[in-house]
């Protein structure tokens, strides 16, 4: 019985260590546009879609738009996942990915559109 506790404990510690590693490596921090341009780690940037800049590029199958953050800084964003169904009525998007200096574009691997259910968002608006 005692030995089993040791083994079980070790397994759990190992699992937690692996989880810690995954936690650290998938962690993306919230940064500003200028910080994103300087960073070589995946980061996330929040902002609004500049009206009229979003278009769907059929040839490369990706969504392009310009993101503007609160301070007014802008950057181009390219996202090649499926266009979020509620993309057109978002008040805010969060792009997660890496900035490509050679293309001057932020390559987003994940795009969070702020869920338009008032359920969540309204608290802040009030």
């Amino acid at each position, binding site marked *: 019985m005692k030995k089993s506790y040791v083994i079980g404990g070790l397994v759990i510690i190992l699992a937690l260590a692996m989880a810690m590693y995954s936690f650290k490596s998938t962690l993306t921090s919230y940064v500003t546009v200028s910080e994103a341009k300087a960073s070589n780690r995946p980061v996330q940037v929040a902002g609004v879609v500049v009206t009229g800049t979003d278009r769907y590029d059929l040839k490369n199958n990706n969504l392009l738009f310009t993101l503007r953050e609160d301070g007014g800084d802008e950057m181009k964003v390219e996202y090649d996942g499926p266009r*979020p169904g509620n993309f057109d009525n978002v008040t805010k998007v969060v792009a997660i990915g890496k900035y490509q200096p050679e293309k001057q574009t932020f390559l987003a691997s*994940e795009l969070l559109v702020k869920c338009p259910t008032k359920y969540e968002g309204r608290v802040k608006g009030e």
Partner: protein
Amino acid sequence: MNNLGELTIWLGLIAIGISSGCYWVLNSREDDTLAQNVARYSFTGFVALITLASIFLMLAILKHEFIYSYVANYSSRDLPLQYLISSFWAGQEGSFLFWVLMGAWLGIFLMHMAGEMEPQVMFIYNLNNLFLTILLIKQSPFKMLATTPADGQGLNMLLQDPWMVIHPPVVFLGYAAFTIPFAYAIAALWRREYDNWIRPTLPWTVFAFLSLGAGIIIGGFWSYKVLGWGGYWGWDPVENASLLPWLAGAALMHGMILQQSRRKLRKTNFILAAVSFLLIIYCTFLTRSGILADFSVHSFQDLGITGWLVFFMFGFLAITLWFFVTRVRDIPVADKGAAFSYFSREFGLMAAMIILCLSALLTGVGTSAPLITRLAEKASKVSTQFYVDTNLPLALLMVLLLSFVPLLAWGKNDFAKLSRKLIWALLGAVLSGTITLYHGYPGLVLLLLAIFAGAAVGVNLHLAITLIRKKFTMSAGAIAHLGVGLMFVGIIASSVYDRSEKVLLPQGQMEPALGYEMKFSGPKFIREPKGVRLDLPLDVKKGNTQFVAQPDIRSENRRDGQGMRFTRPHIRRGLVSDLYISPVDFQPGKEESRSVSRKQFELKKQQKIQFEDYEITFVGFDISGMMAKKEGQGVSVGADIVVSYKGEDPLTLKPVLTMGKEGNTSSRVKLPGPAEAYLSLTRIEASSGSIVLDYQGPASGQDQIVEKSPPAFIAEVSIKPGMTVLWLGTFLILFGGGIGVARRWPK
């Protein structure tokens, strides 16, 4: 206008306060009939008042009384009845009221079923109701506006779906139900009776597991059907918020079964009952305090109810700890005499509980990442990969356990006796493994997951059939476990083997997509009360099957002037796989003819080109405009261009490109000569130091351009295998849970 709704909630608060006080008295003076009567009547009064308040809110919504801010925010005149009803729980305040209402109604049953433990159980249960009622007063759905608007904001289109009518109530029923195991657990510690709380609590635990599970699954189903991103689970904080208590509750359910049959895990069950309840408050705090809405530094500032939520969370934690610490020496440990075997149902159940708890813990850590990282540095969130990384190995262990533990008896097991039954596990494993490999090697972990999930399906299917024949109500566990196995099969199939393609579908043209032939038969605009619905009918053909798919894009004009657009996918469900067609974009038809010829050239510095009658040389940049940068005007760069027309004297021109906030604008310069021809600077290639010039001049005969394109829409077409299996699996989990509740419900 007097605010009756608010008044009834205040009266409800008084009633629940009196009831709690009387139960406190009853705790020390058990046969005080007066106190008991007052406690019960005032609780019933609380239930009546909360019900009344709910009726007021419902009537206000149905009668369009937009003087109430809540009614104006979440409903409108044009909503059909079912969505008017669902606006009751579409917002924070209303859903809190609904939560309290569910707590009140369940409390009536609890009060009559708790028996001897009633004073303590109801006291703790009432504390929670008291807490929710205080929150309800802080966030009243009966707040009034200064002036009555003519119409309300309406209900978000995405929520206008039958599944969204029932999703929130079911979740809140689950939230309310998880209070009951907690109330019993604390009451048991209070009374120092560490075993006999299990029997009355177990059906409630299964009920809570069932209702919260149903809520989660309906949410996933809605997400798949309405949102059009093709998935059903996104590891979103809001989704995780209901998953965490559910996982802890599943562990509790297994622990209670173990305690009931084997007198084990007494302490663990107290902890789990408390944890699953505290997780509900914690997750409510996470999702409603605005902390995760965006993790900016400001979110801690809104202390509307955040402070209360934190206060109550620590309050309940303190109560739990106090009772636990003062009783812990008293709680009997499991019988030492009985032989412990690793090959037993006990061990299997404990292992399953550890896995469920680890999954809840790790998912909880991920969901709380913005909170945790804020302490050290910048608030950060983990990507969904974290949840997959951590839960995948746990899922693997889970299905491995499911493939043999249900066959084990309590105590020592004989492997030889078991091996005959394991034939079903083997059969399922081989079948599932073969099918998986036939469709492509998915990687070792996923292959093993598929194999064990198949084994779990095989074993539990056989077990379920055997038990149903013997005695139907005994099959609850087997059916639920079969569901878990099927769910994992569905998850693997749909997330590993889905195929997806984006296609452009011009009207009237047959286009191939993933083995189907699709023809867009043209858009139909349908006027709706608040906007336009654009139907995009598609004739889909494959072999002999032929059908019309109807995805659509809806636009809504909101009063605040913002247009909203929603795309709705079309799903053709099949036993093996679903065909999922989601509109990405719609392009209206174009027809224009231009009698202008356009041409672009790229020029390096000092490069000279000959074009028609012109000789054009790019001399250099003029960056004086960059210095004169004014607020809001952007940066402008000019290019010095020397042009000579038919060998005449060269002329220096300076087209300018301005890069501003609203994008780039370029000025046009007229070229020398009689023709109406212009040059503009459209782009600067900073790296190569070259420029791109745009020439616009009169067309020379054949250059006349006629552009014509039919309306087209871009669709994301996917084939998602295993979805039906997945939904069947989730249904069976709930069905099994339902049988479990029925079987254990006190007669």
